[in-house]
């Protein structure tokens, strides 16, 4: 059984309007557990849309997304949010940190929805910071961090709930080479931890990586076989 199985997935924006268009057209894709899959394609090819559907951030127009054999495409908000909270870790191109808060407070955000005690939360945050190599900046406000540090803070936040699936949207687009290589190191750690990772990118850095299982090409909302 695949970890993620996408069947006949379509996403239509502005339905019944003259400017209606398909962001995704009849997508069929299976991703196995512990697989690292790269979604490649130019801007507007539908990579980010596919990621947001996989993470339950938006709903497909038709089709199914099975995660551990559960269809998440039609879940009500409360359940799709719980699914996202428990199973998905998002890493965004623009980091999406909560400005004005420290690194520690940002990583703490997903744990606000749990009933864990102070110590257990602290332990989880510490582990996540260690994995992302950002613990030395834990009390610093995120606004004062460099791009690479912000990215590592976002990674720590994405893994603090120990999700099974990590979705990364252009994770190296705003990083220099050094920090991009740092991300690759973390990606290898994900591999070691048996995480299922889907990365949408057009960065060639990922092309020759040994930890990548598959590269899927997208064009105009369709998979290129």
């Amino acid at each position, binding site marked *: 059984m695949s970890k993620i199985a996408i069947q006949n997935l379509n996403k239509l924006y502005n339905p019944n309007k003259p400017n209606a268009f398909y962001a995704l057209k009849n997508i069929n894709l299976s991703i196995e557990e512990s697989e690292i899959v790269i979604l490649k394609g130019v801007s507007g090819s539908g990579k980010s849309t596919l990621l947001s559907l996989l993470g339950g951030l938006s709903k497909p127009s038709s089709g199914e997304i099975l995660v551990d054999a559960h269809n998440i495409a039609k879940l009500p908000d409360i359940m799709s949010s719980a699914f996202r909270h428990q199973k*998905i870790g998002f890493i965004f191109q623009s980091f999406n940190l*909560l400005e*004005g*808060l420290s690194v520690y407070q940002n990583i703490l*955000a997903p*744990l606000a*929805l749990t*009933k864990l005690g102070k110590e257990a939360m602290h332990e989880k945050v510490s582990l996540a910071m260690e994995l992302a190599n950002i613990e030395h900046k834990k009390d610093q406000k995120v606004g004062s961090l460099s791009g690479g540090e912000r990215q590592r803070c976002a990674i720590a*936040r994405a893994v603090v*709930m120990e999700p099974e699936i990590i979705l990364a949207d252009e994770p190296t687009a705003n990083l220099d080479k050094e920090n991009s290589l740092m991300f690759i190191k973390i990606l290898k750690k994900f591999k070691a931890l048996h995480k299922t990772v889907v990365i949408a990118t057009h960065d060639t850095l990922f092309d020759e990586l040994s930890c990548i299982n598959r590269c899927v090409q997208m064009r105009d909302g369709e998979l290129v076989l």
Partner: protein
Amino acid sequence: MLSKNFVEYAILLLFKDRNDHLFSFLIFSFIVFILSAVLFISDSLQYDLTQSIKSQPEIVVENTRAGRAYQMHDGFIYDISQITGVSSVEGIVDGYHYFAQKRLWFHIIGDATLAKDEMIIGQGVQKAMAELYYEDEFNFFTEERMIRLKINKRAPKGTNIISNDAIFLHPNTARAVLGMEMDEYSKLYVSVPNPNEVGNVSLKIVEIYPSAKATTQEDAMSAVRHLYYYKGGIFMILYVIALVSFFILLKNQISLVYGEKKKEIAILRSLGFCIKDIIALKFIQNTVVSLSAYLLGVAVAYLYVFVFNAPYLRNIFLGNTLENSITFTPVVDLNLLFLIFLFGVIPFLAFVILPAWKIAISDMSEAVKS
């Protein structure tokens, strides 16, 4: 059930945006303060006047001529005392003396317990007299003569609204000051022991003396209530205007930070917060802001009115010809405070939570990409 972690994180986010919330907090506190202060003053005045009316007999009779109060003689007392149901009739000397040097009116009240050459004065009167160095004695100038009286003592500060502009004199001295004859009275206090007879007795008084005005306790009470509801009404309109201004300001403030808030909600949604969590988060944050602003507004209004005696605002209620040095009796109408809460906090919460809900239900994918 919201967890402790969730509430703590909501407060953390609130403090992150404290500058945005501080603006709303201060405006909200100010509006609650203004309304509470007005209600405290009007309730306190109503209470004092009502207590004063309650201490009076069942009916107060005043004679009129050409539409103005006119004195009554002993014959009135005799005739009214003959009406069935009346237990006693007491003549009262009461009127106003013009203090030309300060262009003020003093309220002269006859008090049979005082000697003929002494008087008790209210705090406001004392201050007005002291400005012209009348410390121990005061000279009343009438058409016929000058009457010099000892200032016996001052009515204690905070007795109530009644005594501030009052001078208590022996009735005969009061008559001399007011230019009345010795057998004349300004008012008659009519005691009617049976409450069911009060209406009939008042009608009979008016039958005997068509020019007389017989005011029952009930009439006087409703006049006081009407007076302060009327004033309260003006302030209610001011409050509504202030509230509308507040909403416009709040809307502007929300519009200014709409993009950032949308992004923040989208980030939280991507971390697993459901729509209900976003609403709960905003509810907690804005409840903290509005409730603390409400409590601060009420507390400051309480101190302003009952500790500092409402400087500036009291003159709107009491008139400022004579300096009002009265102390407001602490009267707190919890129903009205609850009403302010209901019309302040609830719309405030709705105003912030509805847009947050609207953002939370929208497609988050674009917001997190931006």
